[in-house]
């Protein structure tokens, strides 16, 4: 570890493969990362880059078959989640790691009250009585900013708006005081003002409760606003990782650079068109023997199509998986 603290979550060489009709799809390819206590790690990448699949692999939430978490280790403290039996795994889910999903409209069970759904993990993991769990559920709803919490416990999800439902999802994820909160594009399905409210809420909760957070998003602006560290994924691999300030100021991977360039600017010179990254994300059919980005990369050369670059350290906790020396190029 670059700076001291033992990580709460340490993922090494995670490999997830999907069996499909047209062969295997390598959705997550030797992904390694760690999460320190109280840290907020942003994960960015376009659709299909393996962000969500990586996070779901951690807790065995992918349906198997077709998914197969084939290699690697996920250390939570000193225990490997991937080696756990069903019962231990359940004790981790919802207890030590909370999960917030993308679409709050479908992520809550429509036929049970919100109160029931918040109380479920409390009763299962914390051994609370019904009355205790109910009181705790009221506290949780108040914590995530739902007014009139006690009365709203008996409401059904359809009686809440999208933003309110996402608050409920966060309340469920936080119910048992987890060490780690994984938020899988929690604001993608919400409109911008609600998105801002949820971001504020998470910032505040983090200050109050101090758990480590993994925040998956498409939106680099969100990362810049809340994350300590950022991990950029492409084609099922981590292509660049480092402290937010480092990565934004000195992006080392051509993909990260391209991503940053696609962000429309509010100030300064106005550009005639929105910038895009030309080409398509790769199809992860074969075991990759080339850099997944080589087909779209401006700096691609022979070696990139023959060999998949390994992540190399470029200082200050910043690493990149690319042969190209960005400093040499920009200097």
């Amino acid at each position, binding site marked *: 570890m670059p700076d001291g603290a033992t990580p709460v979550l340490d993922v090494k060489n995670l490999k997830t493969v999907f069996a499909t009709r047209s062969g295997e799809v390598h959705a997550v390819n030797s992904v390694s990362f760690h999460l320190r206590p109280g840290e907020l790690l942003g994960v960015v990448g376009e659709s299909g880059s393996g962000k969500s699949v990586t996070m779901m692999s951690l*807790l065995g*939430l992918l*349906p198997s078959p077709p998914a197969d978490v084939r290699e690697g280790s996920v250390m939570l403290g000193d225990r490997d989640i991937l080696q756990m039996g*069903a019962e231990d795994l*359940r*004790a*981790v*889910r*919802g*207890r030590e790691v*909370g*999960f917030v*999903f993308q*679409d709050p409209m*479908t*992520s*809550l*069970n*429509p*036929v*049970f009250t919100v109160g029931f759904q918040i109380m*479920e*993990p409390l009763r*299962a*993991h914390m051994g609370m009585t019904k009355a205790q769990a109910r009181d705790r559920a009221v506290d949780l709803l108040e914590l995530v900013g739902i007014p009139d919490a006690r009365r709203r416990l008996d409401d*059904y999800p*359809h009686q809440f708006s999208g933003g309110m439902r996402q608050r409920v*999802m966060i309340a*469920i*994820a936080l119910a048992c005081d987890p060490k780690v909160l994984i938020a899988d594009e929690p604001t993608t399905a919400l409109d911008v003002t609600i998105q801002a409210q949820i971001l504020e809420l998470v910032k505040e909760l983090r200050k109050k409760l101090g758990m480590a957070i993994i925040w998956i998003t498409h939106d680099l602006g969100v990362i810049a606003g809340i994350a300590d560290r950022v991990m950029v994924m492409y084609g099922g691999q981590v292509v660049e990782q480092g402290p937010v300030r480092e990565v934004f100021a000195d992006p080392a991977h051509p993909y990260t650079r391209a991503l940053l360039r696609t962000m429309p600017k509010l100030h300064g010179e106005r550009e005639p068109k929105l910038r895009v990254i030309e080409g398509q994300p790769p199809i992860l059919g074969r075991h990759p023997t080339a850099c997944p980005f080589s087909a779209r990369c401006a700096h691609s050369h022979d070696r990139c199509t023959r060999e998949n670059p390994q992540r190399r350290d470029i200082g200050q906790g910043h690493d990149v998986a690319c042969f190209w020396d960005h400093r040499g190029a920009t200097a």
Partner: protein
Amino acid sequence: MFTFTMRRLLLAIPTLLFIALVIFLLLELSPGDPMADMPLTIPPEVRQQMRLALGLGEAWYVRFYSWLYLFSVVEPSHVMANMTGLEWLRVEGPRIISFQTRSPVADIVAQRLPQTLWVVGLSYIFGILLAVPIGIYSAYRQYSWFDQAGTFVSMVGFSLPTFFTGPLLMLIFSIWLGWFPIIYDTTLVVDSFYDFGLQLRQMAMPVFVLTLYNAAQITRFMRASMLDNMTQDYVRTARAKGMTEKVVVLVHVLRNSLIPVVTVIALGIPTVFTGAIITEQVFRVNGLGALLITAIYASDIPMVLTLSVVFAILIVLFNLIADILYAVLDPRIRYD
């Protein structure tokens, strides 16, 4: 919900009146003569007198009105009086008389109903009790050998008509093996363990045939509904909360999957009363289905009309019950 139910019940009255009128007029138009069974030696004048005595001389609207009055006032009063033993409930006067048997229609129905409820009702209950767990497990272990076998059996049970499976069972179990009687004996009075055994044996085959058919249908519904819900996002949420598989499947998924299945089951209950017409014929179960068929053959218009309207009432009623159950099970549905 209460206003919704009241509104629907009130709306049911004109609907049922219209249904009764249509059935009545259809029977008016149908060929056939209730006197056709009488000996040819009866002189035409006497025949005419008998026809008038049955009320067939009146205009159709007079006959419809008197049937309607008897059906909605007199007959219910007798049924109530017989059920409760309160004689003062009884409205005196003429009854709806079956042309065939010359006895009140309500009394015959009361005689036949138990047979139908025992055989058809029991097989409906067995069907549900079998189908729900099989459907759940089939969906949970989709494409396992259990699911493959279950799907195959339910496809067979669903596609083979009861007039095929019935005689097939008779051939195997009555004729070759001699385990069960071919004909259902309605006159059997169960007052000893021995008679109870006989009753079980004679019920075995018709109940099995109908159970297979009902279970096949409901299993397919249950399985499809479970599969629909199994891949929903909220199931992933439940797993991410650390719920056991039992809770995930039997609480989260099942509760959602039951909504359409319960509706289908409720809508099917009237068929329990209408009796499995074909199966009752095959096994000679003297139930309501068999009663309706013989009444149609004999041009027994009062019987056919009364039975048909009773069935219509049951269907309208269970449609309403299905709608109410839907709202009870699914909090997103509110009628008011």
